[in-house]
């Protein structure tokens, strides 16, 4: 006999996970009116992605008066309705699918903006990175070797940096960070971005906070090589850094949520 908490989790999953809602496993439990559950799940899906689109695509939203394309408009279109039977609220796959709908819609706007493609990639990356299971409450006990809180000071052999799943490195043609704040301020002419190769790191903390930082070749090398198996020394050699430099870089990456430490036993 499942606990009431487990039953509640089952109801939450049914509302969040459309394939599960359609499964025999869920239907045979007959916990609630299936028509009502379906309608409420669709309402929740639109609400869930409205909140995320308005937040993560806020710069495209600010441009809507010249593009004629408000990103959240896709939620009322047939393409989003077609996704509904497959949606799993909060999953990376669903975030990517919804993000693709938004970018395709906004990119077809009536006014060409040179950096719009970069902007949409950036906003889509933010939305996808934010997705995935998160820590809702901290454990009562210390988190041990897998702690994301800092570069461990213990024996180096034991701890091996690992890039957190979902972390993204973006290579952009325009210097977006310089133009983003201007888009949210009052403007009459569309703010322009400098054409300059720009590398950004987008990562998420275990609690779901998304952070962005400018990146360089050494950071990119660390992110690409940190697989949870290489030691600090091996990683430093591969990234062309001294171990002391690497520790400093890693501290910044841990703070962003891009890297964690696993026990390399």
């Amino acid at each position: 006999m499942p606990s009431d908490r487990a039953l509640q989790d089952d109801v939450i999953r049914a509302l969040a996970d459309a394939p599960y809602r359609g499964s025999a496993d869920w239907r045979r439990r007959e916990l609630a009116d299936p028509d009502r559950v379906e309608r409420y799940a669709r309402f929740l899906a639109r609400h869930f992605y409205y909140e995320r689109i308005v937040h993560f695509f806020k710069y495209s939203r600010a441009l809507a008066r010249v593009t004629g394309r408000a990103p959240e408009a896709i939620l009322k279109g047939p393409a989003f309705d077609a996704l509904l039977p497959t949606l799993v609220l909060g999953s990376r796959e669903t975030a990517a699918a919804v993000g693709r709908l938004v970018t395709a819609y906004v990119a077809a706007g009536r006014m060409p903006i040179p950096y719009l493609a970069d902007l949409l990639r950036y906003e889509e990356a933010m939305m996808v990175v934010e997705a995935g299971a998160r820590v809702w409450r901290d454990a009562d006990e210390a988190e041990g070797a897998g702690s994301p809180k800092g570069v461990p000071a213990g024996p180096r052999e034991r701890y091996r940096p690992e890039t957190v799943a979902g972390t993204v490195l973006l290579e952009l043609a325009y210097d977006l960070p310089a133009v983003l704040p201007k888009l949210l301020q009052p403007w009459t002419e569309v703010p322009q971005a400098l054409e300059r190769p720009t590398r950004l790191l987008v990562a998420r903390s275990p609690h779901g906070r998304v952070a962005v930082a400018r990146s360089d070749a050494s950071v990119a090398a660390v992110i690409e090589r940190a697989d949870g198996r290489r030691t600090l020394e091996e990683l430093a050699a591969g990234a062309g850094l001294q171990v002391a430099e690497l520790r400093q870089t890693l501290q910044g990456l841990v703070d962003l949520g891009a890297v964690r430490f696993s026990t390399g036993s």
Partner: protein
Amino acid sequence: MTQLMVGAFYNPHLGADLARSDGIDHLAMADPPAASDPWWPAIRGRYTLLLHDYLGQLSEPLDERSIQRARALAELYRSPWVAEHFQCLHTEDGSYNLNYVFPPLYTEEFLDRFVRNACALKARLDQPLVMENIPGFFDVKASQMPEPIWLRRFFEATGAGFLLDLPHVWLQAHYHHMPAERWLDEFPLEHVMELHVAGVADDADLAGPWIAPAEPSDEMLAFAAHAVSRCPRARAITFDAFSPTLTADVLFRSVERIRGAI
């Protein structure tokens, strides 16, 4: 009954209007102020502020980080009470999250969980805790008692205050084909400290009404007046609308009409 404060939610995009306005006694804070909000100092200086953020779901104990956050926000706002919801919206392992208020099963096990965790939170706050009722669009067969009974037992066991959301009661009544006043009578109104009033609008997915950032109808205002007369300990009534689509006209007119109705 003491004089009721009549207020609204702080909507940062209406900061300039709210910083200058008369006729609003308090503002409920759904989010912390943004560092870039130019109106925040004036708002904080001018209004009684009510903490109404997401602190956590009390089906589980709040962790220390969440408790410290609640304490810090209550102090920042100088909030006379701290509000949370009767909600259980993410799974225990964090895999699934509805990102929208969703009620718990009304069972003995959940009652025990909420009582225990609310008492633990209360003990760590310097202000009273008030808890808001949450509507369900469908019934779950595993529930063991009606919502009002469950709430009554919760308030009696914890001594927490009741934040009575009237549109939530109205919606529950609507979807159960029951007169709203009759459904309201079932609730433990003697524990009410604050009331929420808002509009409802038809939703295409639900094929019926749901909460919306809209003006309350005359029917909802009459319902509010009826409810206020039954809540002897109520201290505030709040126009419950928090949305980037909310306009200043709707906010100010709603507060004025609520004041007129009660």
